[in-house]
């Protein structure tokens, strides 16, 4: 395969992945690494570098649109980013210590978990519960625009959520992904933040977390410009197109197809890692 053909094919695949990611709201970034390694035979470290950069592209590209709608909780994002960015640096240190097989297996598990998450729709529940003292101390509670006017919400279980966010940061740099799945776990299920707030807030956090990892990746030599170029340009274009198509469609069938795709890729990734082919 010549450089030209490689670049064009990787670009095309990245457009599709970015498009699907934006359309399903699941972030297609998780598929970049398996595609580059399993289909194009790219070394997993270069694949991780290209993937992490593409995560920043989609996050910053979407952020401008999200900000206008008034869902993003900037204080919550900033508070949790202390955990995710420090986690990202720890992850970038860990990644130099573990084998590529280990990375492959963890990656596969992450794909399976993402598949499980995307197969089910998130609950849209108003949160009630005893006020969390840290949420009040750090002014994390907020309101968001809903059908009946401004809807207030109270953030729950702040220490546990903070810990999960640290883990999300570690995983982000360990695998070269945005680890949106873990951020959703922390914000939706543990901190009980309304879905629309957690999605947009997590989108902002993913970009900042990835930027922390990218600095470390650059020094490790993981960011190979010639591999990253078509991935970054493709994912950016694809996600912009996807955001245009996505009006308010649930895209339920698409979510299920995507979930199956994630699961199969996860199994393949684990198999290849265990048999020493990653």
């Amino acid at each position: 395969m010549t450089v030209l053909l490689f670049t064009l094919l990787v670009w095309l695949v990245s457009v599709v992945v970015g498009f699907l990611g934006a359309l399903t709201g699941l972030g297609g970034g998780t598929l970049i690494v398996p595609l580059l390694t399993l289909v194009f035979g790219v070394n997993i470290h270069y694949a991780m570098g290209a993937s992490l950069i593409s995560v920043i592209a989609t996050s910053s590209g979407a952020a401008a649109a999200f900000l206008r709608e008034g869902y993003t909780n900037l204080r919550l994002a900033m508070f949790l980013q202390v955990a995710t960015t420090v986690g990202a640096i720890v992850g970038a240190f860990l990644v130099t210590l573990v084998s590529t097989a280990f990375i492959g297996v963890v990656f596969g598990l992450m794909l399976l978990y993402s598949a499980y998450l995307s197969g089910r729709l998130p609950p849209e529940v108003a949160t009630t519960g005893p006020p969390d003292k840290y949420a009040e101390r750090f002014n994390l509670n907020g309101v968001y625009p809903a059908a009946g006017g401004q809807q207030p919400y109270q953030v729950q279980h702040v220490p546990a959520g903070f810990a999960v966010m640290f883990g999300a940061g570690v995983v982000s740099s360990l695998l070269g992904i945005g680890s949106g799945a873990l951020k959703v776990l922390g914000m939706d299920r543990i901190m009980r933040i309304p879905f629309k707030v957690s999605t947009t807030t997590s989108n902002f956090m993913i970009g900042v977390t990835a930027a922390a990892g990218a600095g470390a990746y650059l020094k490790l030599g993981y960011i190979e410009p010639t591999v990253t170029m078509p991935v970054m340009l493709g994912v950016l274009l694809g996600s912009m197109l996807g955001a245009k198509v996505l009006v308010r469609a649930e895209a339920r069938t698409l979510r299920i197809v995507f979930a199956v795709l994630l699961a199969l890729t996860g199994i393949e990734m684990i198999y290849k890692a265990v048999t020493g082919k990653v």
Partner: protein
Amino acid sequence: MIVQDSEKLTGKPQEQIIGMLLRAGVVLAAIVVLAGGLLYLMQHGSEHPNYQQFHGAPDTLNSVRGVLQDTAALHNEGIIQLGLLLLVLTPIARVALSAVSFALEGDRMYVVITLIVLAVLLVSLFGIR
């Protein structure tokens, strides 16, 4: 101006400006990457790449200073890497602008929290080798 709820920043003019700057940063980064990429393809398009083995990106492309020097020398890969660096800088710029935003509101606690995040980001990008 009196601000009552904790969603002070969203929807305000400064957030709109931040959003526009973010988008401009992404577009600029994409243009630079595309320019470097096209130059690279014109010169090396018919070669056969090998990305199977990990050697690490060339040393000149592994630091901010190296990338800037390589770009100044008009090396294609340096130009691509400069575009990628610009992209990495967009969320960092957003964090920096958020610090200003919190300062304008007089929220000292969040100025400190934001500066901690900014410090971690800058150490990661420029810091210790």
